[in-house]
């Protein structure tokens, strides 16, 4: 049974002449513990897909089910609660609250869920240690590098032990080494900690960390590729696919 399932998911921005079809009848499934990368040219609807899956935005038609619950049937409060408990987000920019330090930022989802501050912070410390930030626990975002901020965001995404982690270009503004660290971390999230991860990226090298790649073009899924040790170097395979799709 899959954790996430979309049915003919469509999103149209605007109306009339200026209408933009960002997603057009997308059907994807994501299994528990699976690491999926979403790729495609700029403007093809990757972020839109992620937002709809995460319940941040409402689709124009079709639906998203998480654990067989259709998000469209939920009230704003219920949806918020679901995001809090089931989903962790890592955004490309501005992940953190500037006035809170690393621990407080990472503890936020649990605090928002009404957990005791001490408990939430202990868990946040644990996750920050796992993502390698044990020395920067009490730094504020403006005292952290971009990569470190991203890692705090990952710790925050994981602290409430969600079933699903959604990351939109988490390595977009990081150098190669930092990007590899983050991608490795997400791989670990899926592999060792059993969470499903959906990651948007442009970088074939980063996408190669995933189990499966979903290719989008003009709002529709044009290809899906499962990576495994049999079909060799993942990055190479992905580049090949991308070139094929570009034609």
């Amino acid at each position: 049974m899959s954790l996430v399932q979309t049915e003919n998911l469509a999103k149209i921005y605007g109306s009339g002449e200026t209408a933009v079809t960002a997603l057009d009848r997308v059907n994807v499934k994501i299994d528990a513990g699976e690491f999926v990368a979403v790729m495609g040219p700029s403007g093809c609807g990757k972020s839109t897909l992620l937002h709809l899956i995460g319940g941040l935005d409402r689709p124009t038609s079709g639906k998203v089910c998480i654990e067989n619950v259709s998000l469209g049937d939920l009230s704003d409060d219920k949806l918020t609660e679901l995001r809090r408990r089931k989903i962790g987000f890592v955004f490309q920019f501005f992940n953190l609250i500037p006035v809170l330090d690393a621990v407080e930022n990472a503890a936020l989802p649990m605090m928002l869920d009404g957990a005791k501050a001490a408990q939430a912070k202990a868990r946040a410390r644990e996750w920050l240690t796992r993502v390698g930030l044990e020395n920067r626990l009490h730094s504020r975002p403006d005292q952290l590098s971009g990569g470190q901020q991203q890692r705090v965001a990952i710790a925050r995404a994981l602290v409430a032990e969600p079933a699903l982690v959604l990351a939109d270009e988490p390595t977009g503004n990081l150098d190669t080494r930092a990007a590899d660290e983050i991608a490795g971390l997400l791989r670990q999230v899926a592999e060792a900690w059993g969470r499903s991860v959906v990651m948007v990226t442009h970088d074939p090298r980063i996408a190669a960390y995933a189990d499966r790649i979903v290719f989008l073009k003009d709002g529709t899924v044009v290809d899906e590729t499962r990576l495994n040790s049999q079909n060799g170097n993942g990055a190479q395979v992905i580049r090949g696919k991308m070139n094929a799709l570009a034609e």
Partner: protein
Amino acid sequence: MKIQLTLAARYLWGRKLRTFLTTLAIIFGVFVIFGMNILLPTMTHAFETSVLNASGQVDVLVTNKSGEAFAPSIMHRIESIPGVQALSGNLERTINIPANYYRSGSVGALSLIGIVPRDAQQVRDYTMQKGRFLQNTDTRAAIITSSLADTLKLELGDELSIPTVNGAVKLKIVGIRAAQTLPGNEPVWLTLNEAQKLLNAPNRINTIEIKLDTTDAAQRTAISNAIAATIGDEYQLGGLASGSEFMASLQTAQQIFNLMGFLALFMGGFIIFNTFRTIVAERRHDIGMLRAIGAGRRTIIGLFLFEGLLQGVVGTAIGMALGYGLGVLIVEGTRGIYQQFLHMQLGAPVIEPGLVLLTIVLGVGVTLLSGLVPAWNASRVTPMEALRPNVVTVETRRRLNKWTIVGIVLMVAALVGLLSQNISLVALGGFAFLVGLALLAPALVKPIAQVFGAMLGFIFARDGAAELAQGNLTRQPSRAAITASATMIGLAILVAAVGLISSITGGINTLLEKTLGSDYLLVPPSIGVWGSDVGADETLAERLRSVYGVSAVSTMRFATTTVGDQTINLLGIDPVEFPKVSGLNFSEGDPNTAFEQLAKGRGLILNGVGATTLKLHAGDAIKIPSPEGEQTYRVIAVASDVLNTKITSAYISQENLKRDFHKTEDVFMQLNLAPNANRAEVDARLQEIVARYPQFKLVSGAAYLNEMRSLYTTSFSAFYILLGILALPSLIAILNTLAIGVIERTREIGMLRAIGATRKQVRRTILAEAILLAAMGTAFGLLAGLYLGYVMTLGLNASGLYPLQYSFPYAGVVAAVALGLLFGVLAAILPARQAARMDIIQALRYE
């Protein structure tokens, strides 16, 4: 809960300067309200203590409800009540002593107490320090205290001169008592007979002191109740409150201060609202992110309300502390004045629990309320907004959106209301006008910014500062409009008040000429607080009339009465003589027949304050208590004179005053000369007559008019200063929004600097923006202020409180323009510096 509080505190702390500036507005409002409201209770308390002291020394005191003297016959009824051991009917009266009356020392007022020696001694203990007690047969004899003797350097056997209705009279000091320990006027005891003669109250008393035959509390209450039942409705247990007229004007003053406090708080609320709106815009990202990771709408609302709450609590606490300081300072500062002129001892500042509660509710409540709408807006921020890069949004509004149209409609309605001349429509129009202007403001920002921007372009060299500033304003017209509105409100209040005051001054000048237009005036020491002025009996007026060359003499007599809680000054005039030398400004009723009607039956002309507080109109009837029982008077007209505008007063005929209140004492006179009179000769003759009545000062009408004019000018200039203080919050508002504007654009300014803008250019941009904003606010403020001033003038005129003539506040307009621009520049200094000094790297990293 906890996380919201943490976040709120962190955000506030993270922007200390802004938090401080925003809170300042709340502090200011609370400061004014709390400080000013400490004063009145403190003064009331002193007043009550002095009344209490006066009555506290005997078991029971009985007085007439009207406050006036009455026939002693009621004593017989009290005498026969079981438990009453002894009683003494006295005639007591505070008499104002003119300045420099005594050469040997200064005394502001004395308390004359006429007693029947034998009765009095049975009620109280009159131990003498020197000399003897009074005897029934004493005539010009008095007992004084040793403290008064010391002040005036008098010995036993010396003579004490006092002003009386018969002129100055010398009393021989037959006894001296120990210095009085309680605050209040120095008492002078004399026989009741003599007091009745000197005060022109034959066979009248005004207090009955009663001694009971038991000390048992329960029994005493029972006896008091029996007394209360016997004396009926027209009398009361308890002392006479001298100075209640003064308390009334104190109350008016407090109301004015309260109004100012509320306005300041309103401004504070506006500033908070403004700031919160900006904060929400600035934190869209954070909010969206919080929403994305699972913060509910209520959590977001809570976060902002906590921020409001924290600021409200801190601001209120500081404001109250400062307000208390102000209260103490004023109490201490006026202690001497109070003692000297009102003979009351001010105690420590009194803080009523109700006031504390009210202030807290107001201070915190206004902050919370102002934060409510922005908080709600914040809760509507979608998680999606966290995911878009932070670009200061450029507002794209259509030229005519629905609010603009509503604004235009409201303003048109306001103008229609104004033209209708109907007072309630005009008042409603005033409100519509302000709201309409505020709604219209965003649409006006662009054209106004262009006009002023072009003007600024000439002032600043063409380095782009003016253009950039203009661009900054026009891309977010609603924010600019809100800031400009803050200035607008501040200046509108200023201009409106100046308009109102200049109209009042104009009105008062006319009134002064009307009421004080006579050739000569005889004025007592205290104008308006007539109760403690000793007047003259009819002989003085007769003497003055007999002077060759005097064509008319009008006298004014005085009594008080109390309807409900409201003390009313009854002014007795001669319906025939009064209009010859003086006049009233009528707002209701027929001026031509009013005085004639006054002569017929029981009728009165009520002044504006009276008509407003008692809610009466011409033609209504009013029941007023008098020593002769309750009387029904008909309201003939509503009209005011200049001396009694502030206190509830009514004019009745001297005939009625004599019949119902037994008062025939003239406390104020006005004289006119015949056209062909020899001024010098008449003057000399009048001086000679008046010299025998030292309580009066003979002044020429013209001289007195000038004196009064300058008095009004002075008191109004004090009002202007207060207005200036009120305009202060609008300075805070501009400063605030500008500072916020700089904070908000930190990254942008950093970028400007990075691509080569010099510090000077950045500073100039901010300065130009501030001046633009201020100019806009000033323009709005002038418009709104002129309108409001006009509306308030019409309103006050209709209420009859003050007679007014609308006069255009040229001075106010000039002051507002100067202040508006000055504020703009002042407000820009801090943010401009901050922007210019900004570290480029820091600015670019700023989140």
